[in-house]
């Protein structure tokens, strides 16, 4: 244990002075205090995160149901079933949603951040106002966009018809070709403000004289962005994109409320499929198997993240 190791000099009288032993005595009480402080949090993380995680993943190797107690070892059968059960389609659909709901809000967020980084009057009020979509609870975002996409009286159909872009109302959320895009738009609307705030904070670290020097050397706006601005914000941009990617990969609320995975399973993702396995089919083994495959994908992402941050540190 760390405590005993640090306490050793107390008995090792060979070269130690009184002050040394007193300091190490204080060290022990400091350590005990430090450990005491983390105890409640660690206990909660172990009980509510780590144990359920291990238990969930282990159910992948058992036949287990929410309906009756007991579990029976089945080896890799669940994972084989999950892989066969059009897993590739599920992964593809999750991937499209994840990439779309990361790229689109990133572009919007970067655009707003760059615009608000200019010397505009009322900039801080605008920054606060633009955060509004991010504050709304996911179900409110879902309700609002379901209403906008509504086939009969939806605002989107009304707008597009007045602009003569469509010739009849469309059921955006019930059409297999548009449902996924509609979800991505709703999610992007909800997510871009957070990206904006992060990028805006990064933009404020860009030294102004570098910009002026570059423009004195005759660099245009686009050139200045790539040579001066981007190197300063790329670190934060990378973190933002990666976190958005991980969050979207497990996103549940909007999809569940707005389409329920439909129409014809086209908006089903790993998250909603896992939920359905557990709480609609009561098949915990199946849910665990999807969970295992999910963790493998996540692990790959984390390895990328560590590589990325190591490279950043090396620079």
């Amino acid at each position, binding site marked *: 244990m*760390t405590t005993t190791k640090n306490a050793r000099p107390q008995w090792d009288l060979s070269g130690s002075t009184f002050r040394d032993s007193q300091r190490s005595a204080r060290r022990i009480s*400091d350590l005990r*205090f*430090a*450990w005491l*402080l*983390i105890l409640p949090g*660690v206990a*909660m*993380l172990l009980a*509510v995160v*780590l144990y359920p995680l291990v238990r969930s993943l282990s*159910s992948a190797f058992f036949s287990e149901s929410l309906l009756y107690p007991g579990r029976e070892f089945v080896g890799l059968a669940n994972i084989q079933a999950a892989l066969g059960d059009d897993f590739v389609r599920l992964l593809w659909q999750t991937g499209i949603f994840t990439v779309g709901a990361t790229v689109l809000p990133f572009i919007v967020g970067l*655009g*707003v951040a*760059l*615009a608000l980084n*200019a010397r*505009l009057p009322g900039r801080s009020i*605008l*920054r*606060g*106002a633009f*955060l*509004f*979509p991010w*504050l709304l*609870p*996911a*179900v*409110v975002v879902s309700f609002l966009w379901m*209403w*906008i996409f*509504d086939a*009969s*009286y*939806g*605002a989107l*159909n009304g707008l597009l*018809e*007045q602009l003569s872009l469509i010739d009849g109302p469309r059921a955006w959320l019930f059409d297999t070709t548009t449902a996924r895009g509609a979800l991505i738009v709703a999610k992007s609307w909800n997510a*871009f403000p957070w990206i904006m705030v*992060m990028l805006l*904070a990064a933009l404020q670290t860009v030294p102004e004289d570098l910009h002026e020097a570059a423009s*004195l050397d*005759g660099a245009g706006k686009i050139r200045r962005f790539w040579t001066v601005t981007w190197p300063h914000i790329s670190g*934060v941009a990378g973190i933002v994109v990666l976190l958005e990617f*991980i969050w979207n*990969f*497990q996103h*549940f609320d909007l999809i569940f*409320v707005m389409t329920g995975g439909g129409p014809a399973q086209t908006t089903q993702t*790993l998250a909603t499929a*896992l*939920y359905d396995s*557990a*709480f609609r089919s009561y098949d915990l083994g199946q849910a665990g198997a999807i*969970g295992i495959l*999910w963790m493998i994908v*996540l692990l790959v992402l984390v390895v990328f993240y560590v590589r990325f941050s190591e490279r950043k540190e090396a620079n």
Partner: protein
Amino acid sequence: MVVTTETRSAPRQRAVARTHRSRRTFPLGPWAAVVGFGLFAFAPVYWLLITSITPDSLVYRYPVTFFPESVTFDNYRSVFTDPEIFGWLANSVIVSVITAVLSVVTSMYMGYSISKFRYRGRRTLLYFVLSSQMLPSALLLVTLYGIFATFGLLNTYFVLIISFTTFTLPLCVWMLKGFFDNLPDDIIEASKIDGASNWRTLHAIVLPLAAPGLVASGLFAFMRGWNDFIFALTLTGPERQTLPPALVNRYIGEAATDWPELMAASVLVALPVAVAFVALQRHLVGGITAGAVKG
């Protein structure tokens, strides 16, 4: 740049003139961008508010009326006089407030310990806390449901509070650690030299200084509890359910949805968070960006 024939100083002078000019004139480009993105950001919010005060006869009309001729508050009246909705609102308040308090207490202790003490396993702990944020909550939910069922705890406030508190820990610990990192060690040393214990130093000296951070992380935890959908939907029944899942069960069904009333109910759900945010905006934006920009 195709200015090779000119002398070296000419483009420089022109550029100087350009920067000076652009600073004085109206920044047209940024404003055009703000207006364009603003439409995307705020048109839906306008639609939310307008629908909630439009009479049914104008809402269900073809073609869609973007600027209704008359206004009604009937939708809000029926939401506010509904005893069921009031019950869910009370559940939401109870769960979110207790979550916020518990989360602030737990994460300030953790954040302080990680920030100001050096011990083995400290970095591992920090990474463990951070990585737990990346776990898919649907996966944890499955087993948590089983555990809570075994102990007969389903459909209680406790299951929601303990889950939400734990899930806000990573972010709150991270935020508060950043706050404590910025507090000079001298303050703590001085207090100890004066004879104060660790416990007293933390509560009497450090915490008052960290108050803005505590408020910000408390609001984050409150929002986590207030906004959650999937946990409340799965772990509680109608009596203990918070507003988000209850509203989904109530309004989104097979039958036609009462959109104006649902929009009014949505405003009710969104309002507390919006008000708290406006009041605490300055601390919050700092809190949101604290970890990433520095790290």
